[in-house]
């Protein structure tokens, strides 16, 4: 009713209103960037002060971080390697967030995806490598989907808070991983670091053409693009946004809220599960404690920094992947503990959320274009 009314007024406006609208859209785009970028700068400044307290020059540290993240071809590839799982775990928080759910269990879905992939890979024996890869990806995504889907189902069917349940499920996943690599799935030759059987060198994921970076990067980018189309360009995503905006209105308009939530959570978990599969199939070759590397937790920050937009997750993952990649260099060059990266990420997260209060209050759209 109201939608048709506004359409009617739009048609009676001046012909140049189309270009005006387009211009206003461009301004709005920069408006939405302004606050997160300002938050980024503020947190870098705060971390700079922190670094100064440790007796190091903030400028030197940042220069070194840039070098370690983007400065050379080698370091940039290292950044890409870390960005790949972050894109997928970022989706794990971002997709449910569109429906108003705060899921923070990406770490558990990643671990379960990795375990499932590492279990099915060697079990297939002499199957051709593409079949093994496909099976590993399918199993990894299914395991992740089960994990986060469970949190979503508990939310809509039993009213269990998904934030807490998804994190509890992460701890359960890590305990399961430890149980499986110490017992049923243990490779007897892995003494120092209990692991599953290696999937075999011929089954390892190939490199992205032109890069010394595995195909996981392509998986991550494609997943973000697909999720963007799904959430922003389809009826499914539209329904999800209504649920996120107002659950009661969504129910009244006949949307299957429960189904939407559970399917979205399954997709989110599948993304993180794929990240686990990639870590196994491209990096470690087996499932072990190395899977618990914090990609799930960093993914939460990725999603919030990207304002839960799947497209924005790609550049944000590069940024946070770069920060992560420079951690080792900070340790070697300045003697800063490896947790320095965690401090920077935590600061960034806190400042970003504090900046939410300014979101939409910074006006760049000129009045002539309909800004206030």
């Amino acid at each position: 009713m109201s939608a048709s009314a506004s359409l009617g007024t739009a048609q009676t406006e001046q012909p140049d209103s189309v270009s005006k609208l387009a211009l206003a859209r461009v301004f709005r785009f920069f408006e939405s960037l302004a606050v997160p970028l300002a938050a980024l700068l503020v947190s870098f400044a705060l971390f700079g002060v922190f670094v100064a307290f440790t007796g190091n020059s903030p400028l030197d540290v940042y220069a070194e971080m840039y070098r370690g993240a983007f400065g050379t071809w080698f370091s940039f590839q290292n950044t890409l390697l870390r960005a790949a799982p972050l894109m997928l775990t970022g989706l794990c928080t971002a997709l449910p967030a569109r429906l108003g759910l705060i899921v923070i269990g990406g770490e558990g879905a990643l671990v379960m995806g990795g375990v499932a992939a590492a279990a099915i890979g060697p079990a297939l024996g002499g199957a051709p490598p593409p079949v093994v890869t496909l099976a590993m990806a399918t199993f990894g995504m299914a395991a992740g989907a089960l994990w986060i889907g469970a949190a979503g189902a508990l939310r809509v069917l039993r009213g269990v808070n998904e934030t807490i349940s998804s994190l509890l499920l992460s701890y359960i996943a890590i305990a399961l991983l430890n149980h499986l690599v110490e017992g049923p799935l243990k490779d007897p030759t892995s003494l120092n670091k209990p692991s599953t059987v290696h999937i075999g060198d011929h089954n390892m994921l190939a490199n992205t053409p032109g890069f010394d970076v595995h195909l996981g990067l392509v998986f991550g980018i494609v997943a973000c693009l697909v999720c963007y189309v799904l959430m922003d360009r389809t009826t499914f995503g539209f329904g999800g946004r209504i649920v996120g905006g107002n659950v009661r209105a969504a129910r009244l308009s006949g949307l299957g809220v429960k189904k939407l939530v559970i399917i979205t959570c399954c997709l989110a978990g599948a993304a993180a599960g794929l990240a686990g599969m990639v870590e196994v199939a491209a990096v470690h070759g087996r499932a072990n404690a190395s899977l618990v590397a914090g990609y799930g937790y960093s993914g939460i920050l990725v999603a919030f920094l990207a304002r839960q937009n799947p497209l924005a997750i790609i550049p944000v993952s590069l940024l946070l992947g770069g920060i992560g990649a420079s951690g080792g260099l900070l340790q070697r060059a300045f003697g800063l503990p490896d947790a320095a990266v965690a401090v920077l990420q935590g600061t960034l997260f806190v400042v970003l959320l504090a900046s939410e209060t300014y979101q939409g209050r910074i006006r760049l759209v000129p009045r002539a274009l309909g800004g206030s």
Partner: protein
Amino acid sequence: MEGVDASSIGIWGVPLAVLGGAIRISTPFLFVSLGECITEKSGRVNLGLEGTLVMGAMSGYGVSYLTGSAWLGVLAASAIGALLGALHGFLCGRPRVNDIAVGIALMLFGIGLAFFLGKPLIQPSAPRLPSIPFGFFSDSPQVRSALEVNVLFLVGLALAPALRWALANTRSGMVLRVVGEGAEAARAMGYDVLQVRLLATVVGGALAGIGGSFLSLFYPGSWNEGLSSGQGLMAVALVIFARWDPVRCLYASLLFGGASALGPALQSVGVTSGYYLFNAAPYALTLLIMVLSSSATEASADMPAELSVSR
């Protein structure tokens, strides 16, 4: 030597170890959940108490090491906890800032900062908190070690009923509840809602910090990065299970402590298969309890109405 003693009391070693574990392991749960209970009574959720717990453990250990007094460590831990609580309370007082998201951010921030600052504290050993040997009557080392009770546990034991009484009968308890049940009504009565919530989060943070100092200063009794594995977060879930009642928080903490002690207790009598699965017991129990105590259609009647944790 220990093996001989274990066989002398046989299978009874398991419930005894679970009891001992319930008392030892429950203490951090107890302090964090009492703190979170106060915060949630004001209508706000602080998910960041996991970070507060770890920061409390690190700073408590550090101060105890530097000053030689474990109690000064506890004091420092509560001060750091109060500071982190104030940060949470302040940020959430700003318009359009989500308390759950800020909690997650502070959790990651607190853990990262504690690991950073705590790097030099992994090696040295700090003075630990004293304990009272309630097992003096027994010759069995199991009984003695199970009844080696820390003073902080006794403090928590007294604090729980005291808090329940204060919430029901004191002026500040009433104000806290009014703010948590209806911000509008509290505003109409002339109370500063944000101020009350800030204070409630500060007190909650201070208690969580004390819980953290117990981890590093008594049990396990050293500082390392694997010290806490979600106790702070489980305690938040536990408050929901305890239906926002301090005394029920005490019972729930004991239950969780016992569940956490199950794996090591079974291992001590030779049941080693599935040891790692038993490590999942407290998390699975928390989840199960949340499933049983939640409802898809209506919020618990005991829940503060302003709370966003189960919208």
